[in-house]
């Protein structure tokens, strides 16, 4: 009996999706699918792959493929849900690899920042065009590449170390880090933010005006009985220095 093209592709797809390798020549396709997926994932998550090692990364990749198979012909997207997958797999705070999900978030932000739209950064002088009375109502448009990550682990230190040839040992007890990933002059960069800066950036990225962002920040400081004050001027200067702002308005 002759199969239709749809039948042939359905049978072939079932063979490719089966856990068990079919053996023989069909196994070449069965292997290729898994190898292509793993290579694409490792290109997006080079630091994660390096830290866990080839064998473990291959296992992670197989499990991830099972749960989140590729949905399109552009391999840039295969890693879309890897951080989420790792967060579920290593959720227990006692897990030795608990930081992996946050590291993967950083790597995903890095990969996304490489591909996002272009936008020209604004210099801080742009603020001078607004009356000081208008400042509380200012809203900022951040560069499309800006991604903000807050982790209880030193993820940027881990990331930076493992991009060196000889990574130094990073203590997981070193404390959490807040990170911004963004693209400047066509290069992707990651920078450490203070917890307060991070909160300000998150509020501004969400479209809050400066007054709303500051109110939330001060409320948060009070609730946490934190002492000291927030250096707004410095935080704004840094925002512009990192080329993170592409538009300011009072709308």
């Amino acid at each position, binding site marked *: 009996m002759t199969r239709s093209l749809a039948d042939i592709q359905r049978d072939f797809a079932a063979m490719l999706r089966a856990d068990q390798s079919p053996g023989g*020549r069909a196994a070449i396709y069965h292997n290729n699918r898994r190898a292509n997926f793993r290579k694409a994932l490792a290109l997006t998550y080079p630091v994660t792959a390096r830290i866990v090692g080839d064998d473990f990364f291959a296992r992670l990749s197989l499990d991830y493929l099972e749960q989140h198979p590729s949905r399109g012909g552009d391999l840039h997207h295969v890693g879309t849900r890897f951080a989420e997958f790792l967060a579920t797999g290593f959720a227990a705070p006692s897990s030795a690899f608990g930081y992996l999900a946050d590291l993967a978030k950083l790597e995903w932000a890095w990969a996304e920042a490489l591909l996002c739209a272009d936008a020209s950064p604004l210099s801080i002088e742009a603020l001078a065009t607004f009356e000081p009375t208008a400042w509380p109502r200012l809203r900022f448009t951040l560069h499309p590449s800006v991604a903000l990550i807050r982790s209880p682990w030193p993820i940027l230190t881990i990331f930076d170390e493992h991009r060196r040839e000889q990574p130094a040992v990073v203590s997981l007890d070193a404390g959490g880090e807040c990170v911004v990933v963004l693209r400047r002059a066509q290069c992707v960069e990651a920078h450490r933010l203070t917890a307060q800066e991070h909160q300000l950036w998150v509020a501004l990225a969400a479209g809050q005006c400066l007054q709303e962002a500051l109110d939330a920040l001060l409320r948060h400081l009070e609730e946490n009985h934190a002492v000291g004050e927030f250096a707004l001027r410095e935080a704004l200067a840094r925002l512009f220095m990192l080329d993170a702002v592409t538009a300011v308005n009072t709308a």
Partner: protein
Amino acid sequence: MPKGWQADSAPLRAGVGLRGVHHAEWDARPACGWLEAHAENYFADGGPLPALLESLHRDYPLSLHGVGLGLGGCEPLDRDHLARLAALVHRHQPEVVSEHLCWGQAEGVHFNDLLPLPFTEETLALLCDRIDLLQSTLGRSVLVEHLASYLSFPESTLDEAQFLSELTQRTGCGLLLDLNNLHVNSVNHGLDPQIFLRALPAAAIGEIHLAGHTLVHLDGETVLIDTHGSAVDEAVWALYRDALRLIGPRPTLIEWDTDIPSLEVLLAEAARADDERVRVEWSTPGSTVAQIDS
């Protein structure tokens, strides 16, 4: 002008595939006939990748070679993927655009591989519709590449060369002749590559690919895998000389995708392709040196 190429743009000198690991090495603009980029690698809304492609295209003819559209899939084509390809082609205006005669997804899952098709009237009709859609979306004719394969289908009723010939006649598309694929298939399926070469519509062939393969032993038989991970095999160079004699020179590309060597090694392979072409031209009676058939 070879099929598929924009007016007077076809390079006689061989080119190489543009790969991420070599991006920095291209800054020095080494001599090379042309570049072929995998279209999907440059699917980006902005940033350094399209900028690099734009800058390289100022100095080299450019081909965009799609690997992810899955023209022969029974499910509807991914319109978003097609739109991204069209936007890329629109932005860069490459000299030539190509895709593969394969399928890649079922039930919403993409296998990210070039999966083989049976050679039947049903496949032919589907591919013709899809190539028509692709060509009308891009507003230009494209080249389509035949696959290297490890399985064949008992359902096939046409031979591959006949199938390809029909496809070009019905859609006006051109062919991308991959001589490594041809060699791999001739070993894997016991076919005679000479018969295949002679049965192809020579005028439709707009480009030639050369690449390396890997030999494995599976259940006591020898199987060649199209890995693009080594130098071009001597058997493939021999097929290249045959193709030059039979169909004449065509824009030729060295592909290398796994265990990628330095750019220097890649360019040396391209230089060998140039040597092979010149030698065939000088040794073929009555050949018109450096002419490209239209």
